[in-house]
């Protein structure tokens, strides 16, 4: 009996001691069974394309509540963009999300893809997408980390330096030039994993050049010569020639999240509230379309509570409103839930119309872009009306006749001053940039159009002037203090009223 106990115990103890020092199986145990350690690069590429458009977080906060309200496409009573108040969270949303999602996805993808001819087209496409993201960032905040950015994992750079906008813009142009040239239809691409153009390299090339047009034109105020050089270069290399080239990203109908329209998802899900939304079309936007009998109004807007999309019924909320006039939110226009305000409404990342308006402006300035301002302008307006077909046909599309009436009633002011022409072009661009408030905000700052009446609200932080940028993510003060302060030193105080480099 006694011996048996002793035996059992000694065996137990000895085996416990032996087991303890043994770490066989540890490595296997520590391999995450619910994640991949080697990525599928095509799937990463697809997600990168989705991220170029931003996610729900930054679009709701940065676009819908800030940028798009600053340019008076939308309005809400307490919207920081309507009243020029500072919300640290909303103001910072684009910063953290762009670096953390889109750029990180692209940088990581580039780090795992070997630089071989087989991968070349994918790499060039990544470079182009990077430009989209960085331009939006630098246009919104001013100086941002660029050359040292995105190196947290590959390089352990935890506090990247801020770069001057001039240096960033020079590199953006260089990247687009190189990537556009290097794209090669003879090399493999990613097939249907390319949601933009299904690996049609020719259209990717046009995208690179069209984006170069956008980037270059932004320099028209600060460095007109350089703007001219690259606008002409972009044109020469070949830009969008029809709506088929427009960069349209389609989305799934649900579930809300990464697959759905990042700009409207939160709106549909949370804010719409049966027409009692706090965020509405701006009076500025609705009035312009209404006063010009713009056929697009029925497609863009409706009163959600009643389903009424009759243009005559549409009413926008003034951006300086402190209350809903009459007190009934339901009488103010919401984006049309049959067309644009859907989970699966496509996003228009860059349109043929926008390219035509850029060319029209270049032509007005006398730059060599191969056509007249009027032609480009008319192409732009027509393109902006026709592209609405992407939102489906639940609301009748703009007919050629309607376009003709519109363009005849409001023709290009060929005889007007340069300023009048540019006002007309940018105002049209502002309409097609609906849901892309960031770009409209940049163009407003560059050109001063469309003409907006500033809001002077006691809660505002700009003394009644229209903001010239958004305030940086304040976490930078802690995680990247020295570089942040250096940027502020060069650029001016971290205020909404500080003008960034190309806006001086």
């Amino acid at each position, binding site marked *: 009996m006694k011996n048996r106990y002793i035996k059992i115990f000694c065996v137990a103890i000895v085996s416990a001691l032996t087991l303890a020092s043994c770490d066989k199986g540890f490595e296997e145990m520590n391999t995450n069974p619910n994640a991949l350690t080697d990525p599928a690069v095509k799937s990463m590429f697809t997600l990168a394309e989705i991220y170029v458009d931003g996610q729900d977080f930054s679009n709701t906060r940065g676009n819908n509540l800030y940028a798009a309200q600053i340019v008076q496409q939308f309005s809400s009573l307490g919207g920081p963009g309507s009243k020029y108040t500072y919300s640290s969270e909303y103001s910072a949303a684009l910063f953290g999300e762009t670096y953390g999602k889109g750029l990180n996805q692209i940088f990581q993808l580039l780090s795992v893809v070997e630089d071989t001819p087989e991968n070349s087209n994918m790499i060039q496409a990544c470079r182009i997408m990077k430009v989209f993201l960085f331009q939006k960032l630098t246009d919104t905040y001013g100086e941002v980390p660029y050359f040292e950015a995105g190196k947290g994992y590959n390089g352990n750079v935890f506090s990247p330096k801020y770069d001057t906008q001039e240096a960033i813009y020079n590199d953006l142009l260089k990247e687009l030039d190189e990537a556009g040239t290097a794209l090669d239809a003879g090399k493999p691409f990613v097939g249907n994993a390319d949601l933009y153009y299904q690996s049609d390299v020719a259209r990717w090339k046009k995208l690179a050049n069209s984006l170069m047009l956008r980037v270059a034109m932004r320099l028209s105020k600060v460095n007109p010569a350089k703007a001219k050089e690259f606008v002409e270069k972009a044109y020469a290399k070949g830009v969008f020639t029809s709506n088929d080239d427009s960069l349209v990203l389609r989305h799934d109908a649900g579930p809300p*999240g990464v697959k759905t329209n990042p700009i409207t998802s939160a709106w549909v899900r*949370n804010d719409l509230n049966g027409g009692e939304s706090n965020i509405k079309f701006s009076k500025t936007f609705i009035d312009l379309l209404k006063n010009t009998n713009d056929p697009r109004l029925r497609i863009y807007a409706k009163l959600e509570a009643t389903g009424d999309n009759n243009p005559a019924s549409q009413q926008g909320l003034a951006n300086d409103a402190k209350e809903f006039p009459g007190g009934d939110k339901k009488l103010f226009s919401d984006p049309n839930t049959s067309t644009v305000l859907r989970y699966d409404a496509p996003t228009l990342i860059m349109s043929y119309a926008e390219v035509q308006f850029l060319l029209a402006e270049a032509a007005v300035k006398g730059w060599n872009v191969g056509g007249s301002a009027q032609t480009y302008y008319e192409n732009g307006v027509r393109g902006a009306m026709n592209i609405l077909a992407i939102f489906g046909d639940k609301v009748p599309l703009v007919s050629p006749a309607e376009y003709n009436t519109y363009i005849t009633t409001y023709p290009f002011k060929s005889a007007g001053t340069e300023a009048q022409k540019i006002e007309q072009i940018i105002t049209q661009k502002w309409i097609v940039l609906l849901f892309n408030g960031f770009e409209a905000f940049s163009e407003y700052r560059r050109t001063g159009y469309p003409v907006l009446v500033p809001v002077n609200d006691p809660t505002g932080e700009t003394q009644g002037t229209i903001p010239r940028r958004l305030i940086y993510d304040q976490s930078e003060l802690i995680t990247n203090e020295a570089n942040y302060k250096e940027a502020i030193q060069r650029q001016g105080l971290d205020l909404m009223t500080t003008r960034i480099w190309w806006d001086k």
Partner: protein
Amino acid sequence: MRQLLTVLGVILLSSLSAAAQNRLITGIVTDAENKGVVAASIEVQGKPFSAVTDAEGRFKMNVPEGKVTLIVSSIGFQSQTVLLQEKDTRITVALVESTQELKDVVVTSFGVKKQKKSLGYAVGELKGEDLTKNKEINLGNALQGKIAGVNVSAPVTGPSGSSRVVIRGATSASGLNQPLYVVDGIPIDNTQQGNAGMWGGADKGDGMSSFNPDDIASMSVLKGSAASALYGYRGSNGVILITTKKGKSSTGIGVDFSSNSSFNTPVSLLKWQDQYGAGAPNASGVPTRFNNLQELRDSYYFAWGDKYDGTPSLSIDGKTRPYQAYGKDNVEKFYRTGYSFSNTLAISGGNESTNFRLSFGNTKDESIMPETTFGRNNVALSLNSAPNKKISVETNAQYISEKSHNRPYLNDSPRNPSFPTTFMTPGTDIRWLSNPYDANGGEEDYLGANVYHTNPYFATKAPLNDDLRKRFIGSAKVNYNITEKIYAKAVIGVDDINYEYTEIEPTGINYSPGGSIENRIESRSEWNASGFLGYKGDIAKDLSLDAFIGANRQHNRYSGIKMKGNNFIVPFKYFYGNTQPDKTEKLFSESEVNSLFYSADLGYKDYLFLSLTGREDWFSTLDPSNNSTFYPSVSSSFIYSEVIGLPEWISYGKLRAGWGNVGGALPDAYALSLTYITPDGQTDSLGQPILGVNGETIPNRTLKPYNVSTIEFGFENTFFNNRVSTDLTFYSKKTTNDITDADVSQASGYRTTKINVGEILNKGVEFAINVKAVKTENFAWNVGYNFAYNDSEVLNLSDKITTKTLEGNRDGRANVVLEKGQPFGVIKAYDYLRDANGNIVLDTNGRFLRGDLIIAGQGVAPLSMGFSNDFSYKNFTLSVFVDAKFGGEIYSATNQLGTRYGLTDITLPGREGGVAVSGTDVNGNAVNTTVSAYDYWRSYSDVTSNFVYDADFVKLRAISFAYNFPKEYLKRTPFQSVSLAFSAHNLWTIYDKVPNIDPESNYSNSNAQGMERASMPLTRNYGFALNVKF
């Protein structure tokens, strides 16, 4: 055959010789209540004579002639030696229950009991009655103020909430800094299920809310590294060893019944102004009256409007009432009187070899927050058996089920009833919102355009969250004495938790009218299996050795499913199948730690002791090329009063010294390299698969647990015949290789990384004194006082990072951060914008501007103390417990927003005529001007350092008054004892300096201490307790 004969002969001879020299004695063994102890064993020291008591506690036995020493022992009692004189033939031995034995014997690592005098490190102790006297339903909170160096803070969410217990200061920037809890030798899970953070959320409780204080026999707190070194990588924050109650051999079945009921009342500390109503001033700063209901509702929290004048005016519910203040007691009107009931029934019994204790406990708690409830059922069984001298078996099992409904959301405004209740302008009686529904059953827009402010009645009446935790904690120990001095022991234990959690955004809630539901089902388990081989005895004259070697395997597994769905298809029906599914996520991790360890205690002549331990841990979660760490300790104790001649008034004196090295914060499983995962649980877009980078943390392959080494010295003395006892400890605790969960610039692509570079130093002193001030036959007065001072300093975070944010305030206006050279967890808030000479700079309108972020305080009080007085007169006892903390600060967003919103009474000056300001403008020119009160106080509120307050307090934490019914009253009843007690908690804040809130109003129990925002009110409890023994 010859051999057999020889053996028989020897036996015969020895029994003959024994018979010749023996005498017969009789005796009785009793317990403290004079009842016989059954199955007590009586042995003669050094001789093979023994006996066992009968059912009445009587025994008869032969003993050798002459003086002999008897050893009387029984399970559940302290063994006792009795000197028997030559002529004694009858003796009576009264045994003392073994819980009282703990005075001299303490439970140390792995449940090993050691003589207190032999320890070279500090161990804090609490006995069961200390936990039940002023009962806290949450065991963690019961530690508050009781043990020097154990700093407890709990969010004000009641017994189901979690407690923050920090021993001798926080050791790590990123670790939890909470001790390891070990119940009956088995490490248990104390996972924090969820905390309120910057974006709100509820405190979802931790592992300590499971325990029934009535089941606890004692708690030992291993404070320093020398004490906890045998727990290796888990020892960095100290260890709390919990021993549950056991049965004892007795003459029958013992039944204990205890019942507590208490009433909890909300105590409002808000003193808002009551002169100005809702609204904003016009552009020239003149207060205006709202024009319509919408405007009133939009500014329900914004008291910059017109002065109350009693004229008929719109109210928030649309009715017309005189324009005046109605909201003075909104807090009392909204919150309710809660109650807690807790009952425990325990049955225990046993015989000479086996004993048991079975208990059933039930706790029911209704919070002061309407609709918030918590219930707990505990079943505990302890079964112990020692069939012979060689083998003993101990088993403990507990099954716990805990259920919570509507844990309150804190801090941020969505679903947080405290937010609008706190920030309601004085013109509104909160009860006017009490029918919160619109025509469709959704939330009526009483609170205006900001949909993220939820009507408190809507937020409490709707189901918001439910959780259910079922937990089994079991352990089995077998001890086998191979020889008298060598033993082997095997222990196996498990803590197995099943957790179900549901969180609901109800249909019609303004910020998400479609609603949503999240279901989480998790199971979490930890198994530990260990074996020991030990030696205990003298190895030479005057030299004793108590040593063992052992091994442990720890296996943790966590697995769960999280599902989320949006937009209830049929409104108000809250289940996942009634939604548009959003996201399903699999949660999983598995890890193992293997350990080898040894311990050797040498004792010389019972006054000099040396203890050495060592433990090597191997981790599955580390890089295999470098996955183990060694944790040693050495400590010594010297009873100098045994050696040096001391004045008579010094009864006992001991010096001790200890050093140990332990670890903390084991890196998570799967954290070695970057992985890729489908984003948000979505696998494709338009049919194309999508894949993204997993996580926002930069992986680090070389990560290891951080290291903590403590050196400590202590002096223990008793004076005046043990009437006064003191314990003084000095320690220095240094963390190296701390895992800095460093925030990196988001422009790096990530938000955080983990690196082993941090260094934190905690130095401190602990002192405790106990005085039996008066001790007469009828009256006794005991005084206990302890204090602890801990000075912490963040020596290094990393070479790249000098500041790390632990938590940002919701409004982005203050942070709790770690900063090199500063104490752990300093509060940084904005100063005024100042020019180079320190003058305040004003903007062109004369308003203040936000300047630099400055260190405005520290969130953890360095000095804490507890002061207890226990009086007893005949059968009455009175206990008064006071605790205090000094040196900490708190950032109060309630005061900051209250000022911004024109609610605090400081905003009254200048409402008519403005406030005079002086300073300089941005160009350095002197400015003297007058600004409106609105501009003045709003810009003042941007300077958030104005709202960092000294959080010192002295509180009458608990008072209890008890009566023990005299035995003679109970003679004719079945009761052995009956006691009745009244107690009260948080009766009186004797001293504090923070306006409008309680200085302990932290919303979080994370490392970010010192943040408050729209807190729940302080709760005051009045309770009755009945204890009956059959």
